[in-house]
């Protein structure tokens, strides 16, 4: 049985064989700027519309990932991808160019680990020799869909986050690679009853805490089993809350916890509480954290991508914000 406990999948031999990342100008100027494979210095990424720009990022991330994995798209058995836009247009329009079976996924900003976990399960179950997991977000496409026109003058609160412009892709397979995907904890939808779409950190923190606790419980592990426990985009507000929630449950993560949204921008950049979006967790994990792991800084990390399942229409109808978080354990493969 690969299901351990209630929500955790344990994989036998699944590896991340290659990754690819592409980012926009603000991310390139950030502290992780030199970790990314493709950098666009123009928010339009050389395209005519914001939506096409986001698609360009996803295409770039996939192309670089395949190049790093030294394979062609024809050798991929299944593509799993998702983004933030209505009808997942970035993923669907990117996938139409590929002769590969495609599963479109939506988990808001948790999509990066959702695609990685499902891809790993498909590979482990023998349904695919190689799976490609990709996800993207773009500041301007997200702003116009979820908030206001980009140039509208509104004063945003300190709890607001800044959607990361970028895309990340990971090639998952059975052949031995540098990183092993050993387990995944699939989250439940948790709605803490919060309604402020400009404070998604507070809305998502309970979902992240729930998934992390369930992960420890299912695997009989504790925070000290990990060199790093990292959440996707809880930001300055949510990351403090999740630590407190875990502390209340008896798990002290203060020494080995971080958040991708806090890593991607410099604090003085004017990104409010930090980065968010599908790409936030994807580019930081695939671009930066795996490099750190490869360099020997970590042996085992738990990446928990957090998603606010937000809809502007539901917010206008006074509904609260449901949230979800999926965790994936990535371990370094040493030796030879």
């Amino acid at each position, binding site marked *: 049985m690969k299901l351990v406990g209630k929500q955790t999948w344990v994989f036998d031999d699944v590896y991340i064989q290659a990754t690819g990342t592409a980012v926009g100008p603000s991310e390139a100027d950030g502290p992780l700027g030199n970790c990314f494979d493709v950098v666009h210095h123009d928010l339009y990424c050389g395209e*005519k*519309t*914001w*939506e096409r720009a986001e698609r360009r990022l996803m295409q770039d991330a996939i192309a670089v990932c395949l190049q790093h994995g030294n394979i062609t798209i024809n050798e991929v058995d299944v593509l799993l991808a998702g983004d933030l836009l209505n009808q997942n247009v970035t993923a669907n329009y990117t996938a139409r160019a590929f002769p590969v079976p495609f599963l479109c996924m939506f988990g808001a900003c948790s999509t990066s680990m959702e695609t990685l976990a499902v891809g790993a399960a498909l590979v482990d179950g023998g349904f695919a020799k190689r799976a490609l997991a990709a996800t993207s977000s773009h500041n301007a496409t997200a702003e*116009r869909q979820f908030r*206001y*026109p*980009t*140039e*509208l*003058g*509104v*004063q*945003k*609160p*300190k*709890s607001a986050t800044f959607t990361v412009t970028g895309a990340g892709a990971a090639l998952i397979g059975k052949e031995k690679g540098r990183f092993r995907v050993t387990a995944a904890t699939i989250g439940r939808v948790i709605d*803490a*009853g*919060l309604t402020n779409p400009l*404070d998604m950190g*507070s809305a998502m*923190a*309970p979902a992240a805490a729930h998934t992390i606790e369930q992960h420890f419980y299912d695997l009989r592990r504790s925070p000290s089993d990990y060199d790093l426990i990292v959440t996707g985009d809880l930001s300055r*507000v949510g990351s*403090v*809350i999740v630590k*407190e*929630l875990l502390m*209340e*449950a008896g798990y002290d993560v203060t020494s080995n916890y971080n958040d991708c949204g806090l890593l991607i921008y410099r604090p003085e950049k004017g990104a409010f*509480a930090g980065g968010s979006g599908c790409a936030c967790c994807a580019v930081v994990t695939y671009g930066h954290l795996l490099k750190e792991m490869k360099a020997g800084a970590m042996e085992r990390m738990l990446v928990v991508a957090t998603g606010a399942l937000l809809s502007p229409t539901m917010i206008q109808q006074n509904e609260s914000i449901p949230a979800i978080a999926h965790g994936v354990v990535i371990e370094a493969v040493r030796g030879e």
Partner: protein
Amino acid sequence: MRLRDNYRQAVKKFQPKPSYVANSLKAFFIGGGLSVVAEVLRAQFRVNLPSLAAEQAVLLLFIGAAVVLTAIGVYDEFSQFAGAGSTMLITWFANSLTSAALEHRSEGVVSGIAGHMFKVGGAALVYGIVAAYLFGLVYFMR
């Protein structure tokens, strides 16, 4: 209070508070300052123009400036700083139309620009007209 016991209440101490005093002061001085500028301009125009035309000339200048500042991507940053000092002026209405038009030009001139132009500013327009009508009724019935 533990977060687990009553999340919606307990989470408040983790959420950043808006700086009401600083925001009010900024709104007062920036919004007020711009209104003083408008008043000075009106007095200048009044030398050569009738009263109504002088007022309209000032409005045109402010609206024009807001449109240009929106187009070059400065107005949103100004609003982030000035807050209500920017949103309570007619310049914000100009900004709301221009920003929506800019945003949706990728969907074409009819369904994009025209169809979405009033998406944000439309509410101000609707309730502005309704309020004007009601006050007009009161004025004539008095």
